[in-house]
């Protein structure tokens, strides 16, 4: 079974530029998550999708971050414009969505973003 795929693996941009990350979850997984992990800290949930609907985006900085999962499969996370403090690893995870409270999340390798 293929795991969660993310691309690119690394991205370096200058502040005020835009960037987009892509995630392909495990086939059949209804729930998809985006996390931001700043160096030395634990992951912070940015947004949770159930199929193509948003379940929780309370910690997504909506003035600059956006995410979509139009067909309920793969997803993109965009930052526009980027700030220095956005430098982090962006992790995508998916779970089956059958039983939310006990679902196991499977994480992708992450995209490491550096904003100069």
């Amino acid at each position, binding site marked *: 079974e293929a795991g969660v795929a993310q691309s690119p693996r690394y991205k370096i941009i200058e502040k005020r530029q835009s960037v987009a990350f892509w995630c392909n979850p495990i086939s059949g997984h209804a729930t998809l998550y985006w996390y931001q992990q700043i160096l030395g800290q634990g992951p912070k949930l940015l947004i949770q999708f159930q199929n193509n609907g948003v379940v929780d985006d309370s910690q997504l900085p909506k003035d600059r971050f956006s995410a979509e999962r139009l067909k309920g499969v793969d997803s993109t996370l965009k930052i526009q414009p980027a700030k220095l403090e956005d430098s982090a690893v962006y992790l995508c995870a998916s779970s089956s969505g059958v039983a939310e409270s006990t679902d196991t999340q499977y*994480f992708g390798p992450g995209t490491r973003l550096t904003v100069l």
Partner: protein
Amino acid sequence: SQQGEEDPQALSIQEGENATMNCSYKTSINNLQWYRQNSGRGLVHLILIRSNEREKHSGRLRVTLDTSKKSSSLLITASRAADTASYFCDRDKIIFGKGTRLHILP
């Protein structure tokens, strides 16, 4: 505020020894999960314990949960070099703490 906090922040032990790390949380939970993150790799799920369970085992891992104290502990027995990683607890998938960085000394 953080919904889960791991303690200690860092731990170094000799290979073969047992490692214990703790997680405290502030509000009631449905379940609590532990994850491992190796340097340069993604997060890997280790074990889930439900709120009505007190102890759970998986190989060399033992997790306990004390809902009255709002705390959980992860015990790794007979540690190996490959156990060197950061360990995070997760309350209902919402917010992770900063993790415990475990270093196994040869």
